[in-house]
């Protein structure tokens, strides 16, 4: 890649926080360092991965509102985790976490277990158990 080919695509997901370092060649083929604000193919691929995540979060949100799932499922998706990952944070086994995504088991959880979940998802227990706030789209 020649230095004048280093992509500077304005439409990107870097929030102005990151201009990545690329290695590009000068006229004689020797390398130098050039910053890039963004590159479209990467932005497309990254956006696509986030679309998948966001769809799953939205599906989980609807299920929680309809009473088919517990907030565990919503915040699990929201934090891009899976059952086994949440299980190792909470200190249990993944099938237990799977059970806790059912409202029936969720409603029986002790304060201590709720605290562990809330800590894992980086919210307070009140926020975690408050299903009302999930009724607004894009809830925390």
């Amino acid at each position, binding site marked *: *890649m020649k230095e004048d080919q*280093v992509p500077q695509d304005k439409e990107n*997901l*870097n*929030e102005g*926080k*990151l*201009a*990545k*370092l*690329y*290695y*590009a*060649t000068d006229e004689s*083929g*020797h*390398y130098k*360092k050039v*910053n*890039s604000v963004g*590159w*479209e*193919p*990467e932005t*497309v*691929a*990254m*956006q*696509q*991965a*986030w679309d*998948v995540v966001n769809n799953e979060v939205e599906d989980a949100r609807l299920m929680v509102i309809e009473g088919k799932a517990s907030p565990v499922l919503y915040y699990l998706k929201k*934090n*891009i*985790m899976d059952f086994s*990952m949440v299980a*190792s*944070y909470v200190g249990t086994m993944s099938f237990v976490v799977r059970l806790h995504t059912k409202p029936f088991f969720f409603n029986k959880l002790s304060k201590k277990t709720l605290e562990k979940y809330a800590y894992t998802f980086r919210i307070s227990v009140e926020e975690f158990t408050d299903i009302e706030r999930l009724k607004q789209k894009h809830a925390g």
Partner: protein
Amino acid sequence: MQVNFTHKQSAHCESGVISNLMRFHGLDFDEPMAFGIGSGLFFSYMPFVKLNGIPVATYRIWPGHIFKKFSNRIGIKIESKKFSSTTTAMTELDKMLDKGQPVGMLTSVFYLDYLPAAYRFHFNAHNIIVFGKENGRYLVSDPVMETTTDIAYEDLVRARFAKGMPEPSGRMYYPIQIPGEFPLEKAIWTGIKETSDRMTRIPIPLFGAKGMTYLSKRLRHWPERLGNRKAILWLGHLIRMQEEIGTGGAGFRFLYAAFLDQSSTLLKNNEMFDISKQMTANGDLLRDFAYYAGRVCKNRTSDTKTFSELADMLEAVSHREQKTFEQLYQVSKSK
């Protein structure tokens, strides 16, 4: 608690951390040098190893390898520690900072809130350097960032003790012994020999240059095997692996070419510069592939024809890389 630390931005986190740490200890290694001496380049496609249900293609060697090989070849002794207690891990860090010693560590990108949100997936093998503490916040040199930044105690604890694969377990490392003299020329050749050997001589079709041919064969059939939606997702994943923060979309090929370029000047070896140019051309082809794949992802239509074309592009790169690394192997063999 702050040491006089010079931060330089880099393309890849592991080689960047090496370069920044070494500079602090008085050894000047530019990032490409660290990457090349540590034999950072590779390719493998293992359809049975999956991440979120998508097979992993990697354009570089596994995490930790570059650091290990680099310090062995230059003769640096590294102290590396793992912890089971978060409190001990943080007090140990504070102790090192009190001594004025910057510390490299493994973190999960998910908890590094100075990075743009779009990058913060659960990637648990990101290397950063912590070099001080100010007003209760840790000062961070993250190699992919342009400048130094900082992070709260709580976030750093979470980043160091993230769960999932692999678990960083608070791992931190720092050099304890730096050699006065080191065999630079030998280190460069050994690094090259290992990379070119791996790229051309592993007798399993999943690894090295021929791994890319294998991937192209699989990729050709993605639309009929996986259906439209999944084929597009898998392709998008491939682009992300190929770009991986700052490789210019060429899966570390430009970084390695920069290493060959610098080495050719250092060792006054013209053939190496020729190979560097070949590598640049290979990288450009990979970039074209990513660009075309990006188009396909954007339009969200996969058909057998486009995937065949994409597969052809990859296969061409594979054959070229086989040749390039074979030549590199022959050059480095006798050294």
